């Protein structure tokens, strides 16, 4: 953090620029609206609490992803809400992300709802990888956030994508 930066204004400006990260992580890790509100609050609190530890070595977005993903993973482990295991046969078609935004385009909204539901059915680390990849981050950035090297990111991401594809199979046929 810049020594002259006022933490409150820095936090506000980061939230304006990167609010999407908080929302997407929340929606990827919490299914029920009450859980989502709880997790979002937790993410904001953790970001605020950790602001003083930001040394400026990473991009703000990378740092925010790290804090949010670590917090979400810890939050899931600490609650009984988590899904028990990855289930490749999970019926994504019947799941819906209840916090879908009304602003979403109608055509994409259903796809997004299914996508969020599928992501919620993935194992924890795969969720993080898929989310980062869907957000268009390069392997280098994903490696920075996860601590994997780029080759490992490639391998793990391929696997996560295949799992996601299995979960989305049928759903996309329906949408097409």
């Amino acid at each position: 953090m810049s020594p002259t930066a006022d933490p409150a204004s820095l936090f506000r400006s980061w939230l304006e620029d990167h609010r999407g990260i908080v929302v997407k992580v929340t929606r990827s890790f919490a299914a029920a609206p009450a859980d989502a509100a709880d997790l979002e609050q937790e993410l904001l609190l953790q970001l605020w609490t950790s602001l003083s530890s930001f040394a400026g070595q990473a991009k703000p977005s990378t740092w925010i992803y790290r804090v949010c993903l670590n917090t979400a993973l810890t939050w899931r482990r600490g609650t009984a809400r988590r899904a028990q295991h990855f289930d490749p046969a999970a019926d994504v078609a019947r799941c819906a992300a209840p916090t879908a935004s009304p602003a979403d385009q109608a055509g994409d909204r259903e796809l997004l709802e299914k996508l969020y539901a599928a992501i919620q059915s993935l194992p924890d680390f795969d969720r993080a990888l898929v989310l980062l990849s869907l957000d268009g981050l390069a392997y280098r950035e994903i490696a920075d956030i996860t601590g994997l090297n780029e080759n490992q990111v490639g391998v793990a991401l391929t696997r996560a994508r295949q799992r996601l594809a299995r979960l989305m199979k049928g759903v996309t046929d329906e949408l097409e």
Partner: protein
Amino acid sequence: MNWNDYASAWQSQGLPAGAPADLTALRQTFETRRRKLAVTLLVRDLAETAAGLLVAAVFACVWWHLGREGWPIALAILLILGVSGCFVRERLRTRRHRLGPDAPLLVRLEAEIAELHHQRRLLLHVWSWYLAPCAGAIVILLATLGRILVRRAPPDFFSRLGEHPAPAAGIVIYIVIVLPLFFWGIWALNRRAVRQRIEPRLAELEQLHRDVLAPATDHAASSR
């Protein structure tokens, strides 16, 4: 539909504007939690250290009453203080190894696995750093008391004891049955905690770690 379609939909999703973060509320929540955590940690640390100091003080008091002959109790006091020292060292170690929330995910996962292995080791070996020193301290205290009692007791003490055996029997039962049962209970509870809480969690995290780092060939084989 393929990955690019998902990514395109994902990146163009309209995110709910939501209420802007209420900084005042966040600060209040943060302060409340920080205070609560600080009090909890202080109470826990003080309780663990104070318990050891209290027992050591009681032993010291007994030693003072017994005079020079009670010198072995000094060893018992050292053992009790050693146990307290283990608790303090453990707290310091935890603080030293704590990772920030902005650590890379894999580093954090590996740190969590290492911490669970450490806790597992501590609980499985609770006899070595907790039970044995405490039991040793009690044995030293009782042996010293017994030795001094035999030496200082009036000549008819043991014959009178035979006439009223209940108190002596109570003490013997306490030493031979209650105390060992108590220590066994602590040992068993620790093993149960390892079995029911730490090992499943460890297995889950190690599986996650293996999955993340599994080479592509492993996955290709497993997905066939």
